[in-house]
């Protein structure tokens, strides 16, 4: 229950940050870049899309899915096994994707995007919470 509350909270934080990026992109405005200063470089790079879908939209969909799954698991909407497995698979895939995108920022684009890093840390924290709750 506690781990699901944390996952739900983190997914809500993820939703708010990806919604902000989606809005800025649609309005063709520069996002505020509190740390690093490379947000525009990273977000305008050729790596900002995967299979023609912008990364912010993919992130938003992932976070919305995680929040729904966490809510279903708390409320007890079945099938619980499917939700449990889907949550683990989704967070694992998102964590790997975040590692890849962080590597791109570090080695290829050579610029750091605050929002991308925040999203990556949010996803990794979700992974740590799932691992820790499975270990207990």
């Amino acid at each position, binding site marked *: 229950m506690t781990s699901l509350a944390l996952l*739900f909270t983190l997914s809500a*934080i993820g939703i*708010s940050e990806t*919604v*902000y990026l989606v*809005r800025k992109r649609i309005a063709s405005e520069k996002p505020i870049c509190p740390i690093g200063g490379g947000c525009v470089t990273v977000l305008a790079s050729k790596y900002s899309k995967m299979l023609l879908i912008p990364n912010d939209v993919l992130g938003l969909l992932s976070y919305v899915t995680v929040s729904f799954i966490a*809510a279903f698991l*708390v*409320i007890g909407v079945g099938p619980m096994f499917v939700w449990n497995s889907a949550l683990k698979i989704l967070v694992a895939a998102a964590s790997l994707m975040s590692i890849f995108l962080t590597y791109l920022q570090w080695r290829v684009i050579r610029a750091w995007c605050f929002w991308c890093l925040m999203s990556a840390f949010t996803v990794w924290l979700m992974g740590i919470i799932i691992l820790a709750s499975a270990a207990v």
Partner: protein
Amino acid sequence: MKKTSFHILRVGLAITFLWIGVLIFKQPEAWEGYLQPWAAGLLPIPIAQAMTGTAILDIAIGAFLLFDFLPWLAALVGAIHIVIVLTVIGITDITVRNIAILAAAIAIMADSLPKAFTDKIMSWQKTEDQKNQDQPLEV
């Protein structure tokens, strides 16, 4: 309010409303006990249905706040909702938290009111000030 602090408060309040909605869905009967008998008697629908409605309202308020969609309206509805909650459950262990949520909702509403609305208030206030200045002082 500074933009950053506004968004932190908005997202925090959104999570609170969303999570409360989820918890009410999980165990509506656990929340029914908070309702004062006089308030339960006033309900035109079964209490379980009222709790489901409350959960849906909480989740809707939370979603609007989280997506930053009409935040002033969501915060206004949230503030009214919390005032009703404070009225129907009376003074309990969680009253102070509800007061904090109410204050946060009012702060978000005040800060995100549509510009047309705030402009109207300002122009009305200016007109009133002008009227007061034009009136001769009575001796």
